[in-house]
């Protein structure tokens, strides 16, 4: 996992709090670069704080490269496949029991309705125009990418 580290001005005061001061950009490293000035009593507090920050970051950030490299073991793959197919069987049983939708009745006077005046030419023209506008509007829908979707964590 990539992390950021900022040197800041943390060399002078070992008791300076990490979290309440956002201006100094104190984000934890893997714990390998420890500040030599920290007193032993502060180490556990610091470690706990660092761990919470690390956990929060891990929760909020999606590491895209990690997702690609993950592979499933053969037995785990088979287990999952079996699980999914049993679930599907249960669902398909309940679905097939639904009866097909019957035709609704639109009128009790079909001959009258069908013999009535046809849709006027003006109405057809108007509907065609509206449909053309709608088509034109839909064809103009596009994604407006404002910023990068994937960013790299880099150690400067």
């Amino acid at each position, binding site marked *: 996992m990539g992390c950021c580290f900022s040197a800041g001005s943390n060399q002078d005061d070992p008791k300076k709090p990490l979290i309440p001061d956002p201006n100094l950009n104190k984000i934890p490293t893997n714990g390998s670069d420890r500040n030599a000035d920290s007193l032993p009593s502060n180490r556990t507090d610091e470690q706990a704080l660092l761990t919470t920050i690390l956990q929060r970051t891990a929760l909020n950030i999606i590491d895209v490269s990690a997702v690609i490299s993950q592979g499933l073991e053969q037995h785990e793959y088979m287990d999952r496949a079996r699980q999914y197919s049993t679930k599907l069987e249960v669902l398909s049983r309940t679905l097939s029991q639904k009866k097909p939708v019957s*035709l*609704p*009745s*639109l009128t009790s006077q079909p001959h009258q309705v*069908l013999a009535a005046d*046809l*849709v*006027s*030419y003006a109405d057809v023209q108007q509907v065609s125009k509206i449909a053309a506008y709608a088509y034109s509007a839909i064809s103009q829908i596009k994604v407006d990418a404002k910023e990068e979707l994937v960013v790299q964590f880099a150690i400067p």
Partner: protein
Amino acid sequence: MTTALTQGLERIPDQIGYLVISEEGVLASAGELENDEHTAGVIMQMVRTACRFKLHGTAEPPFKRMSVMFEDYVYAVTISGQKVFVVKRQNNQREPVIV
């Protein structure tokens, strides 16, 4: 049975063919639509799709008649008593001439 269904359709002005279709298949056909199972199938699909449009979440479909309009003719479609009635009529309407 079919005469009761088709008598009214025969008398529709400028009709050039009709179909009466049920869930099982074509019950009656005449004129230009005689034995036209292909058109019957297409129209059944269109009507089932149209029945799925509901306005403001009401239960019934929001239309009484569906018209498929071509240059010179129209298919007028409605549903009554679990049967789909289709009539092919001449479309004589043109752009109104302003005198």
